[in-house]
């Protein structure tokens, strides 16, 4: 994800009923209406009846408002809030296994260290690192790791919360829970 795509990103925080098939309903809606997703993460909430889906949508594929209204029609969707990118704190986790013999190992570890990451597994010719950061920073990490030879790489997709002190916290764009 490059910086230029950031303006196309909008983060939707979607409170859904914690019922079988809800994620499939959300995913199926995005696919049948041709909306692009940059990332999607699901997590339980402190209320066991609900889960929270954090979706980063590409507003170039459809206007945000249309995406929100269509999502809101899903009976299991309780409320939707938009996190404006400039008012959100976002983090993502990256795990990468790269080719690194004894010589490169230190280099990889140092690189991970710059991003406050750590080496979490080592073999004679490979290391696995874990780095948490903003999606942009992780793009950078990916670029820097690739010359070593990436064997496997996984990212979680971002989760986000509103910045403290921002005037409005989550901006409800559709809220039927009332």
């Amino acid at each position, binding site marked *: 994800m490059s910086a230029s795509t950031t303006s196309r990103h909008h983060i939707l925080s979607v409170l859904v009923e914690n019922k079988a098939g809800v994620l499939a309903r959300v995913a199926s809606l995005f696919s049948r209406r041709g909306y692009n997703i940059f990332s999607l993460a699901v997590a339980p909430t402190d209320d066991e009846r609900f889960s929270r889906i954090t979706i980063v949508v590409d507003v170039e594929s459809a206007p945000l408002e*249309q995406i929100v*209204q269509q999502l809101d029609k899903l009976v299991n969707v309780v409320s939707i809030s938009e996190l404006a990118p400039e008012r959100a704190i976002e983090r993502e986790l990256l795990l990468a296994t790269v080719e690194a013999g004894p010589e490169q190992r230190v280099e990889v570890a140092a690189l991970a260290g710059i991003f406050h990451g750590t080496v979490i597994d080592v073999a004679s010719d490979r290391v696995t690192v874990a780095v948490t950061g903003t999606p942009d920073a992780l793009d950078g990490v990916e670029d820097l790791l690739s010359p070593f030879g990436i064997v496997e790489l996984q990212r979680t997709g971002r989760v986000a919360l509103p910045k403290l002190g921002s005037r409005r916290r989550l901006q409800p764009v559709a809220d039927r*829970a009332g």
Partner: protein
Amino acid sequence: MRLTGAQALIKSLEMQQVETIFGLPGGAILPVYDPLLDSSIRHILVRHEQGAGHAAEGYAHVTGRPGVAMVTSGPGATNIVTPLMDAMMDSIPLVVVSGQVATGSIGTDAFQETAITSITMGITKHNWLVTDAADIPRVVAEAFHVATTGRPGPVLIDVPKDISNATMDWYWPSADDLDLPGFHPVTEGDPALVRRAAELILGAQRPVIYAGGGILKARAAQALRALAERTGIPVVTTLMARGAFPDSHPLNLGMPGMHGNYTAVTAMQQADLLLALGSRFDDRVTGRISAFAPGAKVVHVDIDPAELGKVRRPDVAIAGDCRVVIEELLTALDQLGLDGEGVAAPSSPAAQRPDSAPWIAQVRQWQQEHPLRYRQEEGGPLKPQFVVEALRDMTPDDTIVAAGVGQHQMWASQYWRFDHPYTWVNSGGAGTMGFAVPAAIGAKVGRPGSMVWAIDGDGCFQMTAQELVTATAERIPVKIAILNNAYLGMVRQWQELFYEERYSEVYLSPDLPDYVKWAEAMGCVGMRVETPEDVAPAIDKANAIDDRPVVIDFRTDAFEKVYPMVPAGASNDDIIEGPAEGEGGR
């Protein structure tokens, strides 16, 4: 009271005042068919589950109540996928109950197992897989609530066999017991927006009301009439809204769109204000969207907020029920000085209203210069429009008309005179061939006192004709007019016009099958009409038969085409009116 899940299901349907279920049993739904024997609910045994679905749609169309269908698992359930999709496209309230294999077998590719909730996820408003017999009354109540509240639509309840056989303590949920934390449709319009809309109405020089199927869903026909009459604004009624405003009303311009009439299409193109009420800017109405009604401001009222701005960005977007919002609009017009008679109070904002006479005169001129036209030559081939006009003129004016999909559907919509709401039953958004026969049956069940005619194509008829066996067996006296042009006519029309007359797989034959014999084999009266003179006597005879279905095979001119026409993707300004008078349909 201890009940089995199956008993609870039937009892729940009774609690919802269900009178009729269209269905066909099988293994997974067997337990539910047993208590049905002891129920007051009438079950109509169809010959194909698609028929059950369309019949339930026809029933819902004419009654406004949800249609109910019941099918078994696997192929039974997949056979009703098309009606679910059709009902989703046209916002028809439909409740389908499907059997499912026992919960312990789900996921094992058991006999007749299919994940129907996954399959129908995108073509239902919502669906449920019941996993506990105790949930059945609540789920049924939720299903009816979702199907009928807000924008109506189809729902499906999938009931595994072991759940039907399990026992539960009977209860009936109150509204508070429904577990739908994410379902709260809006009905009332935002007063500030309603006021803004009223101001736009009073400022417009060339306004048009673009009435859609939402008017009928909201039971807003009377409100619409009050609005049109008070403001003097002409109304177009889309394919889904035929009957929502009387065709014989002087302000009715008829149907817009791809096969709409010149005046309806052109008035929208030239309008400076479109008042879109329960309509959704379907591509069949707008033509090329970038060229649609370029000078018009748009007020869009719809109960589904996702429709507002989906296709065309409105200047005023009002989420709400059409009837409620129209009534709010009337109040706002009152406040701006336009009274119930359409008279403006002196020095009120309404008194500044531009004179509407030039616009109405313009519309009248278009109507005079560009009528719908066809010519029935004496001794010439029978024209399909002539048949539709004869049917229209020889039946009571509240006759219900169901149509298939194709040329005959467009002629039916163009040439019928719809003066009552809920008399037009058709598949608009989906364009499902085979809709007419079962939908007519469902309509007749819903409104047994009305005459029901289906205007069908020969191609469509062959898709679902076997439901006439159901109609005969259940004594449902529907009447079917087949406009038999021996072709998949609408496709043939496109091949003629846009593929240099290269006809690819559109010929059907006029007499294979023999429709009269087929009708008779299904217990119907069958007739054949080949000349204009024989049209009226056959219709007379059919109208007199009330103890069984009737099928008339009208052999119509295969070369006749539907005009006017806006080619797909073209601008509505490029409407083609067809050959000049007298050139015939070739």
